């Protein structure tokens, strides 16, 4: 990673609440995160862990029953949590911070041409003529790998395949040269072979255009591929973060252990796969102690009583678990994820199950 490390966006102590009927649900509980310019940060977590909700605070796209009840998101000297109206957001959302969503079919308008949907964004954010906008749109389509872009400009989304549609969504998101691109499960709805292409496309474009990427995914394989740094979310909090190597090869939080251990890639035939018992905590209730404690076989007494602070593992690696307290018993990560790199290397080297020529 680069040494200069300019923070481009900084979220501090974010808390998000949703009003559901007469109750309040706390979806995000005091999450702080700094993104560095040009890096790829991946947030990984299961459904309901709050990963999407958290990043929606960067673009003011929380559902109407949700509010940011605490904290700030600083971006170029502006606190994004203070912006209220669409007018406030103009010039930031879609222009400086763009989002790619999971399902390209729902993020494109089915009854308008591909071309008009791209030029719309360009015209909105840049003061240029229609012809110039069209020119830019075709260039962008070309860049995201649409063959014969000029001729496909006037086609409709249904004439595109799923992968092509996602390329268009990327083209739209990048058409105003944003500084931050949020990718919310961009490949989950796509086939694996298409997924590989889209991931590569985003990476190539990032190199070329130099934006910062925030990936949201539940797939650790994708994380390993794209991320410089990783944050693991559980129960509305980031519970561990570090460089991608630290998270995969030296994880410290029992939840990160569990997540890695349950990967089918590591499964041995004829033996049970590791799995996490129980269910994630209900966010309607106040969570006492470590949110993962009830499902954690290694849980200490204190895990049920007091919320752990972040403990420092290295300058870049922090984990929110009492296991790192000097008084805690020394615990080793589970056997399955010991020597992870050696194991995976065996699988992908010659003769291994995932080796290809």
């Amino acid at each position, binding site marked *: 990673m680069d040494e200069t490390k300019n923070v481009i966006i900084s979220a501090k102590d974010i808390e998000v609440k949703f009003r559901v009927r007469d109750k309040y649900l706390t979806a995000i509980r005091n999450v702080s995160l700094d993104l560095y310019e040009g890096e790829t940060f991946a947030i990984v977590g*299961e459904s309901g862990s709050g990963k999407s909700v958290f990043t929606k605070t960067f673009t003011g796209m929380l559902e109407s029953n949700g509010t940011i009840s605490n904290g700030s998101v600083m971006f170029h000297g502006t606190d994004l949590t203070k912006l209220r109206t669409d007018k406030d957001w103009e010039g930031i959302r879609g222009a400086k911070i763009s989002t790619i969503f999971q399902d390209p079919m729902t993020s494109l308008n089915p009854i308008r041409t591909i071309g008009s949907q791209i030029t719309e964004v360009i015209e909105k954010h840049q003061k240029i003529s229609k012809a110039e906008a069209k020119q830019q749109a075709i260039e962008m389509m070309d860049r995201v790998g649409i063959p014969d872009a000029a001729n496909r400009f006037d086609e409709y989304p249904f004439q595109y395949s799923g992968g092509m549609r996602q390329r268009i969504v990327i083209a739209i998101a990048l058409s105003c040269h944003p500084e931050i691109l949020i990718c919310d499960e961009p490949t989950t709805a796509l086939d694996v072979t298409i997924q590989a292409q889209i991931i590569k496309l985003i990476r190539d474009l990032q190199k070329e255009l130099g934006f910062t990427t925030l990936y949201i995914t539940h797939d650790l394989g994708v994380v390993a591929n794209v991320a410089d740094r990783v944050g693991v979310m559980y129960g509305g909090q980031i519970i561990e973060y570090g460089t991608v190597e630290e998270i995969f090869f030296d994880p410290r939080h029992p939840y990160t252990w569990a997540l890695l251990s349950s990967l089918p890639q590591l499964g041995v035939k004829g033996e049970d796969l*590791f799995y996490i018992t129980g269910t994630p905590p209900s966010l309607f209730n106040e969570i006492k102690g470590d949110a993962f404690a009830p499902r954690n076989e290694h849980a200490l007494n204190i895990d049920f009583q007091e919320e752990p602070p972040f403990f420092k593992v290295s300058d870049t690696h922090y984990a929110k678990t009492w296991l790192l307290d000097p008084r805690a018993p020394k615990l080793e990560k589970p056997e399955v994820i010991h020597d992870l790199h050696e194991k995976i290397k065996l699988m992908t080297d010659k003769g291994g199950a995932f080796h290809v020529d």
Partner: protein
Amino acid sequence: MSTEDREVILSIKHVDVTFETGHKKKLRAVKDANFDIYKGETFALVGESGSGKTTLGRAIMRINPCSAGEILFEGKRISGKISREEDRNVVRNIQMIFQDPAASLNERATIEYCVSEGLYNFHLYKDENERIEKVDRALESVGLLPEHKSRYPHEFSGGQRQRVGIARAMIMDPKFIVADEPISALDVSIRAQVLNLMNKLKAERNLTYLFIAHDLSVVRFIADRIAVIHLGEIVEIAESETLFKYPMHPYTVSLLSAVPMPDPIVEKTRHHIVYDPSKLEQTDEQRELREVRPGHFVFCTNNEFTRYREKMDRMEQEIG
């Protein structure tokens, strides 16, 4: 492993499934599928969206009619017109597990009703007590509690709902299960639970699975044999370990290279091989499934067959 002496439970014989897609337009979603599934094995059908894997699964369930060929279950034809009695027999013995448990359960019915539905339809119980006992046993076998009976599907988590879906199939005491992407809609940690459960039930009841999936990493863990399907054509069939060790067809290779590995060092240096059908031999010769090694079939022409065999020889020497 020799396969000749194993008992065939389901036989797909040159099956085509065709859809009308407009006036005089037809789409052959499954083209000449031809393979056997042995009793007690997990046979995986792997392909991308639009490959016809679900269509073939549905043809076995007799939801999609076959436009050519036939399907035999325990030696008896089950495709096309069959007698009412046999129809009931097939419905009982072949059950399905669906992808999205939230969509496949009646949200306005209790779990008790959802699970007993098959029993009601087939009057598979003497009295209320026996029915309830059967429901309890089915729920227990998937790790749910009898007290869950009175609840509604929305009160459960995704993994629990999928367990209900499995209980619903298990209560019929089937011999054969078509599981159509049973874990794709689930979170990583829940996936492992459901896979373990399926393996456990298979061992306890000597079930046979047709496991339809798009994810090779999952399939490697659960399947005994794998068929790879691409645009309606089965391009390769082999024992699970063999397919991973000696992938022959370029499409299989491409699929394998696209499986993301949970290791940043490895993953960042891997490259994805894009499948390019134009690199196959361009010929009018009909491709067919040919046996490269016993039990390992690849869809190819005669020339390609020779090449695959050479490749196999080479790989066997290198890997051993």
